[in-house]
């Protein structure tokens, strides 16, 4: 063979030939799979953000592959959840990529408003939208009725002070209405009036020997879900767990004791537990103190002399006994609560024996009753009795997370704004019937749900312009019908929303906003867990999927610019003059810059290493964004002991001098007695009973003859605050909520009741209350007591998207929204809506 042929052969077959170079193999059977070995590697990067699917506000990380968000996990840098996130965090992926999101600003063209009216939305530009809103505000200012502007806030981040806090003040309205009162306020009442803590407690799971869970479901819903879930096996190993809950919750299914209380009657059990702890000498003496001679005089039915007892860290234990506990035997409580006396006694004894490592865990379920403020005091008082307050294995406050407040805005409040700000509030908080005593202040809480009534009655006046973000008030407030009517009445309503929700249907302008977890930079503070407090960063991890803006900052900025164009520059001047980059001094020139500068200013104490603080050291702004979380030091136990509880007496108050002062101030404001306040707020207490945790009989709307069943609602472990029902992952695993069904929203009814009513499993039933009706599927379920029907909140959307509704076009919901049938009642002392405690009776009929 000659060389030429050989070379040719070499080229064809890929053989080596001397003197010629062979650059690549010739292959018949194979192709080079460039990806093969290389691809079995991580293709993305984990970037920090925060999940606000519930108020645990978990630091998380998102896995970004080619600019797409593909996975979620807990942020391993966070000490509160130590790298874990719960099931709901993953659902956020289906939220951000939901095609049913609002993708651009829209304007209503049908002037008529109502559920049956088609809004006939048409697209408009952001600039047009801002001009229209600015026009309405300028008109209010021209007429000097800026108080007729109301800003509504639902969930929020640390930047809420801009859109919700300062913007209304600069324009001139006292009517910034948050959702806090429909969230949980009643459960904060007890901790505040015993140890001045208006906030969620941290519970020291890993160190405890007893968990007494009052409607709390920590492996499923708020609070500290990933941490609680993670340590639950250990807690079960070392501690006893008792769940007081009308339904067999996820946590109750994994507890030692289930006490299926008649809804709203929790107070009887709590009082009886206190009674047993005292009569059996199980209180924790190093905290509470003891009888001077060591002889226990807490005997059933007998009054005790206050002078016989010497207290240590507490105040008023004997007063409490005399006023509220001396007759509260387990037998007495059995009659009220439906729980056998022997079970109550056993739980009380076990709980007391675990002292001081014993937790009485408060939740909305046991406190958001019409008279639940006192249940909150009773149940939190149990922590006092066993000395677990501020103690190892007990109920904890949080370490501080130092941040900067927003720059002062008072210089930008002009005469018109000042006049508007001084007008009475639309929500009636602080009125006689709504003390709303947050932080000892009459009217310290905004009465969210009452705004609908006020608007309808034009009392104290009408609202003309509403700016509303991260809300869905005609879905999330009890007795939604009033909200549909009120919204139809408001002449100009801007809804800033991710999805076209029920509230959107009544909007004049719809503004699409960022999804908090993926599309915006911000910070979230106030959350804690596992004995650590933290600040967690949110981040713009992906290019926003649609033409969306950040509600709290970008939209506020654009509105400021539009108002300036129309002759009112104060808002934009506040933003331009008072906000500047803490490092470069640069002032913001657009909404996105404004957003970043605001976050940077707010968080500066945490990323500036020269600021002294007790917690992580973070070297600079970029590092804070990268790490995603700043952790405090571990909680310093017993720091409030020794008279630092912040109450009037400085002690942990069983008899609350602090509440007494607040109630007396409220009564004085209205020229009435405290007894009158009790009456006006539907409480039965007279005299000094108003100042201690005590049993109040459950208050229910609807008479028993017509509405024989008590309606009890609960939360879902898949709820992202009622915004996740449009994800298929939610629907596919809805049965992870014990008793629930996939792709459905069932009414859980005990088989005994079902039989009486002729209802079979899977029948459609009409559930009617004095305020409304829904039609849903019945589920026969042993996990609820006879006489009580149970239903999860979160479904029943007639808007929101193609999965949340059975038929979006026909407004046909999947299931039924509980708030259609729940009566609009309040725990007025705390200013909380009262959605729990069986506040509403229903009748159930097969259809």
């Amino acid at each position, binding site marked *: 063979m000659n060389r030429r042929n050989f070379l040719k052969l070499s080229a064809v077959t890929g053989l080596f030939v001397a003197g010629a170079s062979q650059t690549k193999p010739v292959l018949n059977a194979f192709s080079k799979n460039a990806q093969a070995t290389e*691809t079995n590697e991580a293709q993305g990067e984990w970037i920090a953000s925060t999940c606000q699917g519930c108020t645990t506000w978990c630091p998380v990380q998102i896995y970004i*592959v080619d600019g*797409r968000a593909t996975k979620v996990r807990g942020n391993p840098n966070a000490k509160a959840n130590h790298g874990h996130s719960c099931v709901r965090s*993953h659902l956020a992926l289906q939220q951000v990529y939901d*095609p049913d999101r609002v993708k651009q600003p829209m304007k209503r063209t049908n002037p008529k408003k109502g559920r049956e009216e088609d809004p006939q939305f048409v697209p408009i530009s952001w600039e047009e939208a801002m001009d229209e809103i600015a026009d309405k505000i300028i008109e209010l200012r021209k007429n000097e009725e800026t108080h007729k502007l109301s800003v509504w806030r639902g969930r929020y981040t640390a930047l809420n002070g801009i859109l919700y806090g300062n913007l209304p003040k600069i324009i001139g309205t006292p009517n910034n209405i948050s959702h806090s009162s429909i969230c949980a306020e009643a459960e904060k009442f007890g901790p505040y009036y015993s140890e001045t803590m208006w906030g969620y407690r941290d519970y020291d799971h890993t160190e405890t020997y007893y968990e007494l869970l009052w409607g709390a479901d920590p492996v499923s819903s708020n609070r500290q879900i990933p941490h609680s879930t993670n340590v*639950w096996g250990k807690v079960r190993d070392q501690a006893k767990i008792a769940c007081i809950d009308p339904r067999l919750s996820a946590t109750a299914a994994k507890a030692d004791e289930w006490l299926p209380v008649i809804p709203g009657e929790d107070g009887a059990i709590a009082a009886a537990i206190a009674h047993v702890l005292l009569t059996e000498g199980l209180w924790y003496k190093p905290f509470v103190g003891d009888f001077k001679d060591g002889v226990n005089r807490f005997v059933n039915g007998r009054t005790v002399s206050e002078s016989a007892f010497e207290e240590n860290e507490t105040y008023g234990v004997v007063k409490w006994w005399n006023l509220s506990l001396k007759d509260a035997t387990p037998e007495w409580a059995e009659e009220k609560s439906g729980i056998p006396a022997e079970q109550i006694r056993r739980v009380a004894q076990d709980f007391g024996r675990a002292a001081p490592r014993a937790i009485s865990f408060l939740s909305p379920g046991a406190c958001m009753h019409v008279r639940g403020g006192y249940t909150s005091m009773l149940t939190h008082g149990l922590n006092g009795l066993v000395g677990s307050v501020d103690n190892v294995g007990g109920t904890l406050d949080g370490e501080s997370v130092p941040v900067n407040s927003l720059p002062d805005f008072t210089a930008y409040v002009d005469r018109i704004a000042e006049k508007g700000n001084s007008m009475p509030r639309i929500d009636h908080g602080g009125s006689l019937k709504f003390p709303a005593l947050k932080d000892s202040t009459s009217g310290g809480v905004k009465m969210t749900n009452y705004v609908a009534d006020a608007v309808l009655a034009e009392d104290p006046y009408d609202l003309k312009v509403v700016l509303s973000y991260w809300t869905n008030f005609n879905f999330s407030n009890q007795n939604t019908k009033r909200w549909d009517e009120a919204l139809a009445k408001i002449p100009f309503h801007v809804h800033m929303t991710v999805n*076209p929700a029920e509230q959107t249907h009544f909007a004049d302008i719809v503004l699409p906003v960022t999804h908090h977890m993926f599309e915006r930079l911000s910070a979230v503070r106030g959350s804690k867990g596992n004995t650590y407090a933290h600040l967690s960063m949110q981040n713009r991890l992906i290019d926003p999927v649609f033409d969306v803006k950040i509600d709290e900052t970008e939209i506020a900025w654009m509105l400021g610019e539009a108002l300036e164009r129309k002759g009112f520059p104060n808002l934009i001047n506040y933003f331009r003059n008072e906000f500047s980059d803490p490092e470069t001094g640069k002032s913001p020139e657009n909404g996105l810059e404004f957003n970043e500068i605001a976050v940077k200013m707010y968080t500066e104490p945490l990323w500036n290493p020269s600021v002294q603080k007790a917690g992580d050291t973070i070297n600079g702004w970029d590092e804070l964004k990268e790490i995603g979380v700043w952790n405090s030091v571990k909680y310093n136990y017993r720091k409030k002991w020794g008279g630092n509880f912040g109450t009037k007496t400085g002690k942990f108050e069983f008899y609350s001098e602090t509440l007494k002062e607040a109630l007396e101030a409220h009564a004085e404001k209205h020229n009435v007695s405290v007894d009158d306040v009790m009456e006006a707020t539907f409480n039965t207490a007279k005299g000094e009973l108003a100042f201690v945790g005590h049993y109040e009989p459950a208050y229910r709307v609807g008479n028993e003859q017509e509405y024989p069943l008590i309606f009890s609602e609960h939360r879902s472990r898949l709820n992202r605050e009622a915004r996740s029902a449009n994800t298929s992952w939610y629907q596919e695993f809805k049965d992870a909520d014990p008793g629930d069904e996939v792709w459905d929203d069932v009414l859980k009814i005990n088989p005994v009741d079902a039989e009486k009513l002729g209802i079979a499993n899977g029948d459609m039933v009409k559930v009617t209350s004095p305020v409304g009706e829904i039609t849903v599927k019945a589920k026969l379920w*042993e996990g*609820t007591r006879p006489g009580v029907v149970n239903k999860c909140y979160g479904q029943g959307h007639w808007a929101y998207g193609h999965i949340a509704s059975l038929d979006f076009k026909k407004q046909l919901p999947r299931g039924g929204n509980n708030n259609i049938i729940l009566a609009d009642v309040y725990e007025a002392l705390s200013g909380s809506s009262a959605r729990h405690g069986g506040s509403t009776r229903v009748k159930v009929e097969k259809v």
Partner: protein
Amino acid sequence: MGKNYAMTIDLHKCVGCAACSVVCKNENNTDIGMNWSHHIINVSGKFPNVKYEYIPTLCNHCEDAPCVKACPVKAMYKDENGLTLHDADKCIGCKSCMASCPYGVISFNKKDPHQYWTEQTALVEGMTASPKEVSEIAGEKLPYYNPEREYNYEGMRYRGIVEKCQLCDHRLARDEQPYCVSRCPAEARYVGDLNDPNDPIHELLGKYGHKKLREDLGTKPKVFYLREF
């Protein structure tokens, strides 16, 4: 010697939250109704003495796998590490494996998955997007698509074949636990190598005792349940 992979699920730690099943869908790009990870719920007793039990399920990677025996084209096979795997290329969609599996953990693709994302109609014209629009913006048909699954299995399967849990063999191959294990907030799960005497799985199995699903069938499942829910 190859490995002999097995999973432990500690029911005492499990809180029944279904995170394993949701993240499985996330990792493996499965469509609605195609759940490689699922659960059995048992409720017994009468009020107030009610017992609720949640048992997470998945392919048991049986040592003596009926699906492997049933498959006429060897699309179901045991790999060298004891996994029961499915080869999409060979699968002819005859469903013999599904019929033979006593655990019901194999799903059949009646249609191409994630067809939803090809739809071109928006829910509210002008206001919301069509699924296809979102796919195009994201740059993937399934916007949160996980491409890492492609390494040794079809990233998304297709019409006419079955699919099932591969125990995240792509993750195991790079010394990571399956995604359901990594994301379980209760840390209830673990995958270990029974052939390795130093693997922590032996301690887990020894410490708590264990049971398997339908041991009577002789399939020798490799998913071991520890303790009680």
